[in-house]
């Protein structure tokens, strides 16, 4: 929690004045029983004066009104500071997550990052408001009541100290035992969420295997466990309020008894007993607030820790801000120099890969499942950095480029065909916000998407739902291709981007690409050899090693791995041409 305090720096005024207002209100509140004691001891017992009673009554209303206004000020400051800090945290998180690279995103996991921006930040925000509003008030009321009690009767105030101590111990006992169980409950609830999600996502499989009964067994066990734990922890927290109220009431009994002794001896007045009793009641109420606050704070600090974890994650791919990049015109467009790569501590995904791709060439990258094809292309836009060796674009190490300059010239069609909510036009403007409708339509035509887009009632203004769910897999894929080529990038990377297309569309698309991508360097990652047969160069990757590079004819004749792949898909006659 403390680590997040920097988000409150702009709200110093609010954070200081807010609790002060609250303190002022608490002071006023503490005065009320004193006034009441005066009414009884002076107004009734001594003066028998109704006008004095009226005056004191008016004073009480005045105190209340003052209390109200200072409370309102406090609420105002609390709302402002907490919402402001929450907004700043969300902004900082979002911005920071944008700066993290793929390796960190993989590790933290996107669903968890999403909860951190939304739920966890809300939790912290609420905590800040609570702290400003209550954190000073409750202890102050307790302390103030104690002081007031001491001014009334020093000896009797010892009872207050004893009671406060007892209540404090109870609080500590219950909290220290229940807080860990609360975290456990959250985990068990997560488990129910996981089982439910699995059942919805995998419903076809579960039904196909007729496993409904077993699944119900799983949820029965999980819900039973949750109910048990929840009942166990609540048996503890259910103690809190009866014990505190019992302790205070016993304290009141003691006050009345010793008060009686004092009054009898003449060292005290009856009204003072009444005042002491009401201070005791106030302590009780304040203690209950403290208890709730402590629960809230533990939850909040868990969230704060999750937020901090994000801020403490250092991006592994760091942008260097070289202003002057001297592009070498006569160098290869893309060059891999002895590149190796591994994700963390595992085996090498890629090892010792070297090749060159000339300007305007079309290159196919082919290989088995998990051979490292996608990893290889991910190194070009620096989604990951090579562990060894260097990747060069236009003769310059990709690590020397500013991100925008490097990624701005690369169009990528990722494996997952994700579109964003908005219109088709908005989606296609992702790379270049200033591109014209003609550019968009041309890109759609090349991607073989114009036909179905133009049939939509609203054409390129048609709505795209989140993730592009309202389009079929093949349509989504074509729109993603259009999105990548609309700004005519220098390098186009197609990462298994034809898998959802039937062969006819696949072929038409490749033809259109070839005709319209003059000067564009195109990398096609695929498992279909028919897709790469016509490429200027084919790279064959197997278990992270470059098995061969060359044209179809060269490889078919000289590279066993490639020949095998081809023959698993085509007949010899088809492959030889």
């Amino acid at each position, binding site marked *: 929690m403390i680590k997040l305090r920097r988000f409150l720096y702009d709200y110093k005024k609010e954070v200081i004045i807010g609790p002060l207002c609250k303190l002022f209100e608490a002071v006023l509140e503490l005065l009320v029983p004193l006034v009441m004691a005066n009414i009884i001891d002076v107004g009734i017992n001594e003066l028998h004066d109704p006008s004095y009673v009226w005056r004191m*009554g008016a004073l009480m209303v005045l105190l209340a009104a003052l209390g109200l206004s200072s409370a309102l000020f406090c609420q105002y400051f609390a709302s402002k500071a907490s919402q402001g800090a929450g907004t700043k945290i969300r902004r900082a998180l979002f911005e920071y997550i944008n700066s993290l690279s793929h390796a960190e995103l993989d590790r933290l996991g996107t669903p968890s990052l999403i909860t951190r921006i939304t739920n966890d930040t809300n939790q912290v925000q609420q905590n800040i408001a609570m702290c400003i509003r209550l954190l000073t008030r409750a202890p102050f009321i307790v302390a103030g009541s104690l002081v007031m009690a001491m001014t009334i009767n020093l000896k009797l105030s010892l009872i207050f100290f004893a009671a406060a101590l007892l209540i404090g111990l109870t609080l500590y006992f219950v909290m220290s035992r229940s807080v860990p169980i609360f975290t456990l409950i959250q985990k068990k609830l997560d488990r129910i969420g996981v089982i439910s999600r699995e*059942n919805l996502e995998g419903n076809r499989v579960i039904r196909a295997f007729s496993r409904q009964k077993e699944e119900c067994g799983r949820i029965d066990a999980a819900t039973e466990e949750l109910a048990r734990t929840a009942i166990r922890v609540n048996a503890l927290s259910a103690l809190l309020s009866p014990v505190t109220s019992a302790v205070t009431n016993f304290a009141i009994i003691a006050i*009345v008894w010793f008060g009686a002794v004092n009054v009898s001896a003449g060292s005290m007045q009856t009204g003072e007993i009444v005042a002491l009793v009401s201070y005791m009641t106030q302590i009780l109420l304040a203690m209950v607030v403290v208890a709730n606050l402590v629960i809230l704070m533990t939850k909040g600090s868990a969230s704060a820790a999750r937020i901090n974890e994000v801020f403490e994650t250092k991006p592994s791919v760091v942008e260097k801000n070289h202003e002057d990049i001297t592009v070498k015109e006569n160098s290869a467009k893309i060059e891999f120099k002895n590149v190796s790569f591994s994700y963390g501590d595992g085996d090498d995904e890629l090892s010792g890969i070297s090749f060159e791709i000339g300007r305007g060439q079309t290159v196919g990258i082919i290989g088995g499942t998990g051979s490292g094809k996608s990893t290889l292309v991910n190194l070009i836009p620096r989604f990951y950095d090579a562990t060894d060796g260097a990747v060069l674009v236009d003769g310059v190490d990709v690590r020397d480029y500013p991100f925008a300059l490097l990624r701005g010239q690369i169009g990528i069609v990722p494996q997952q065909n994700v579109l964003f909510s908005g219109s088709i036009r908005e989606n296609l403007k992702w*790379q270049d916000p200033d591109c014209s409708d003609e550019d968009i339509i041309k890109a759609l035509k090349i991607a073989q998407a114009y036909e179905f887009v133009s049939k939509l009632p609203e054409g390129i203004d048609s709505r795209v739902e989140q993730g592009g769910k309202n389009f079929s897999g093949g349509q989504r894929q074509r729109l993603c291709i259009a999105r990548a080529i609309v700004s005519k990038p220098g390098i186009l990377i197609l990462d298994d981007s034809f898998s959802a297309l039937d062969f006819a569309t696949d072929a038409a698309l490749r033809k259109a690409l070839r005709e319209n991508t003059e000067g564009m360097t195109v990398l096609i990652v695929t498992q279909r050899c028919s897709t790469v047969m016509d490429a200027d160069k084919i790279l064959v990757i197997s278990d992270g090693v470059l098995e061969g590079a060359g044209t179809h004819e060269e490889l078919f004749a000289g590279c066993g791995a490639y020949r095998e792949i081809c023959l698993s898909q085509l007949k010899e006659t088809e492959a030889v041409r």
Partner: protein
Amino acid sequence: MKKKTSAGKILRRLRPYTGLLLLALLCAVASVTLTLLIPVLIGRAIDNIIAKGRVDFEAVARILGYIGISVVGMAVSQWLMNQLINIISYKTVRDLRRDIFRKLNSVPLSYIDTHPHGDLISRVINDVDAVGDGLTQTFLQLFSGIVTIVGTLVFMLTIDWRIAIAVVVLTPMSLFVAGFIGKLTHRRFTEQQLLQGDISSYVEEHVGNQRIVKAFSYEKRAFEEFEKYNERLYTVGFKAQFAGALANPTTRFVNACVYAAVGIIGALTVISGGLSIGGLSCFLTYANQYTKPFNEVTGVLTQFQTALAAAQRVVEVLDEQDEADPGSGVIPDCGGNVRIENVSFSYSPDKPLIENFSLEVKSGSHVAVVGPTGCGKTTLINLLMRFYDVNEGRILLDGVDIRTIPRDELRKNYGMVLQDSWLFCGTIMENLRYGNENASDEEIIAAAKSAHAHSFIRKMPKGYQTMISEGGGNLSQGQKQLLCIARAMLTDPKVLILDEATSSIDTLTESRVQRAFAKMMKGRTSFVVAHRLSTIRESDVILVMREGNIVEQGTHEELLDKKGFYYELYNSQFSG
């Protein structure tokens, strides 16, 4: 009206706990009565302490003794009440979750296909919690609140009816103020809730797809857009928070006024001799106690509203019709003869999909289904598995209409691998054993070997005991598909259904896996849906589908000779 019935339906679920509930109510009455009695006793004790030398110690001691007993009684009954309510509420929550879960496993698949999963999960988790909190906790708070109000009123009336009436007249003011503020805040909170939803989905989209955001250097624009939502949330959130925070101080103010009024009227009555000082002290306590439940009740009412809304969402799911499964037919020893007779089907009436479709598949043949996206290939699988039932016509398995066979019985005969490879959180071993509880470790390893999954499983940190994370995030798509294939192989099915099951597997591994399948499925029927023509070349019969109908059928060679749609499809891969 609808709200009430759903609350009623939920309340009916409390029936098994009626005894506990009554006991809890009894405890509530006891604890409230004792809580109210204590100030009276304290007041009486104080009345016996008048001034120097005028203290009746015997009476004070006796009364304090009573107080002590009452305090113990109160504490015990309060704890018992809390505990009982906890038990009732958590057990109800547990029951509700189980019921919804069972319901989700028995509704027609179309329900799950057409409802957003996030929403359904939120019903299982959040809404059920809200119902649990709301309907039991608020029920009790409401009850004890009312008991407190009535009890206080009675006690006050017995002490002095004039002051009592003053209190009664004044307190509803706080109710009024709270109600007013409640209305004010409700609108802002709804607005805030809506914006929260917007910001969540924006974050989900753009953080969830960071890779693409990065690829297109979209970070800055995403951030700017996010800022717009964020700024708006700040304005609305600030207003909502402030408005919500108004309720507490203002009602406190009203209460303070009531307290002052009681003090004034009480003191005046004491001066005129109508009330003792102890009586006044006790009155002051009541004035506080009487107003508190009003504040609580107003707070509780909003919570109750939320609970009702949640209850409605829960009941909505529970009221869904179960999938009808009247059949009692059995297929003693399935031969795998599939006959489809004049079947028509569509997901929605206005978009006809499969119309008047007929097909005969002899036992032991390997059928491949090809065709462009959206032509109805997967739908055909859905119908065979009875994930959906036909609108017209019928499907026969070994001459028996599959609608007369209970779904579980029917599906036992099938082995299925789908395009979306689904695995659950658990070890690889557990996942593979999913379709066949009795499979031995050796059998599982053998199946993994034939599915060509053994080698990568062995390379994983804990081999077959490696945990698969949620959604199988630590595996590639192709690896997941291989595991699903191994899982299906273990069930030893009579009919095999592969729906794009190998789409992410490289062609070499695929052809090896296919050989394993061919060995296993010798003499049994299989259906294979695929895009890749290489996947299906060896099939006995290839069905070429287009717009919900079979346009051609035959072997690979026959279809090529025909020079029809299949020929076009096949050759298009070389025309590029």
